[in-house]
């Protein structure tokens, strides 16, 4: 239960000129190209874009596990990767990162002990583990080995780990990929419940555009750049699209047209500098 202060709270994530290069060798690839964006507190921000556009890299950068980062990136009032943030952020990688040779409960017990160590905290840990298992609806499978679960169940174990220890920011990398429609709806209901009742900020990525409508805010990404940051309604209105998907495609076409124009301009003056797109 968050008390909303009268003034606008500072954003959970604030990025300016954020650039990430990956790969070794003489020509590293620019995965994020001087991007700027904000993730408002207490809301669900969807990061949408085609596969390979840099969504996972952006999320790893926010969590602080990405190397070769330049630019400004503040997370919960601290520079990304600050040691203090490690217990305040819950992170779910795209592939479920749990121990296949442990049961669901043993997995959660261990990660809970890392977050809240010591014998004195044993009762608190047990309650946190029970709640996390209930949150992802796996109470009936708590004693099953994670490796024996279905793909969707394993990714829910991974999500449960991120829910331990009441994080202020949840970073979820494609948590609903490969899930059936019922589970997807349940998970989205859970995300909304978590933001509303626990005041948690969620940054969630997806390459499925119909999930965009379930987010409060959207970051549309393409080829390492932010195409737009807006609410789903505003985006549809601005692009005159019936759906976010239509709006996204229209923005992509515009961006392509601008890129072509720039390429022509560069061909005329080879020393011309690269412009960066600023989000609106």
């Amino acid at each position, binding site marked *: 239960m968050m008390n909303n202060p009268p003034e606008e709270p500072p954003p959970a994530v604030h990025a300016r000129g954020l650039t990430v290069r990956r790969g070794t060798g003489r020509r590293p690839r620019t995965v994020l190209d001087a991007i700027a964006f904000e993730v408002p507190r207490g809301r669900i921000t969807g990061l949408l874009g085609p596969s390979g556009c840099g969504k996972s890299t952006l999320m790893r950068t926010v969590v602080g596990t990405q190397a070769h980062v330049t630019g400004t990136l503040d997370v919960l009032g601290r520079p990304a990767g600050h040691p203090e943030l490690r217990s305040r952020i819950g992170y779910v*990688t795209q592939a479920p990162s*749990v121990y296949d040779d*442990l049961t669901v409960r043993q997995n959660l017990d261990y990660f809970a002990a890392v977050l809240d160590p010591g014998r004195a905290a044993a009762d608190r840990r047990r309650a946190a583990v029970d709640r996390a298992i209930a949150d992802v609806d796996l109470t009936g499978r708590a004693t099953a080995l994670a490796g024996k679960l279905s793909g969707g169940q394993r990714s829910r174990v991974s999500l449960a780990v991120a829910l331990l220890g009441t994080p202020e920011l949840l970073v979820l990398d494609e948590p609903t990929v490969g899930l059936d429609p019922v589970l997807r709806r349940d998970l989205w209901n859970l995300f909304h419940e978590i933001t509303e009742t626990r005041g948690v900020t969620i940054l969630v990525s997806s390459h499925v555009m119909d999930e965009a409508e379930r987010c409060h805010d959207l970051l549309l990404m393409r080829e390492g750049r932010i195409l737009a940051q807006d609410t789903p309604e505003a985006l549809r209105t601005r692009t005159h699209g019936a759906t976010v998907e239509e709006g996204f495609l229209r923005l992509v076409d515009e961006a392509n047209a601008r890129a072509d124009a720039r390429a022509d301009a560069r061909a005329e003056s080879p020393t011309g500098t690269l412009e960066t797109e600023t989000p609106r």
Partner: protein
Amino acid sequence: MNGARTLATAARVLRQLRHDPRSIALMLLVPVLMLTLLRYVFDGSPHTFDSIGASLLGIFPLITMFLVTSIATLRERTSGTLERLLAMPLGKADLIAGYALAFGAVAVVQSLLATGLALWFLGLDVIGSPWLLLLVALLDALLGTALGLFVSAFAASEFQAVQFMPAVIFPQLLLCGLFAARDSMQPVLSALSDVLPMSYAVDGMTQVLTHTDMTADFVRDTVVVAACALLVLALGAATLRRRTP
């Protein structure tokens, strides 16, 4: 470093192992079977069995823990759990000490079985204290854990990790004095064997084999093995990166 997190990590590693009874059986029974085999290979020359058997009591824990740790940490890296742990408030030293503690405990059980069998059933003739044999075996296990942890950083797959076994362990095995006395080797190889930690592991075992008391050489050997293990553990810690490309 946090004691509770280290213990939680060690307990987790052992819990993972408990779900894999076949690996436990292999880790505990293979040294026992090999020693038995060796005893009857050298049926006609019990002295050879004494020297080789004692050396093997030090080499088994090193090889087993090297293999187990390199695969276990590689799985930790490839499954994403390492990235998750390092994004959490877990110290690198907690993780490494947790692994060393868990596999050290397994090594104690393995060495107890192997040493007990060798001394009381296979007639291994050791002049020194069996506890000193156990101490060297434990330090060797720690060295194996350290080497495995370090090497796993350079393997992209379990296939590669297994190939590091012959690359890292076999040269030490050939030069450690098991097959030929170290001072009788070609001078370059003899000098090389002086800087390889397994040579000291085997020398330490030989000291226990031939002396009733702790000799100065024994102390030097154990200190060298322990220092190497700590050095390689520190190198292994340096390969755990919170930020990866």
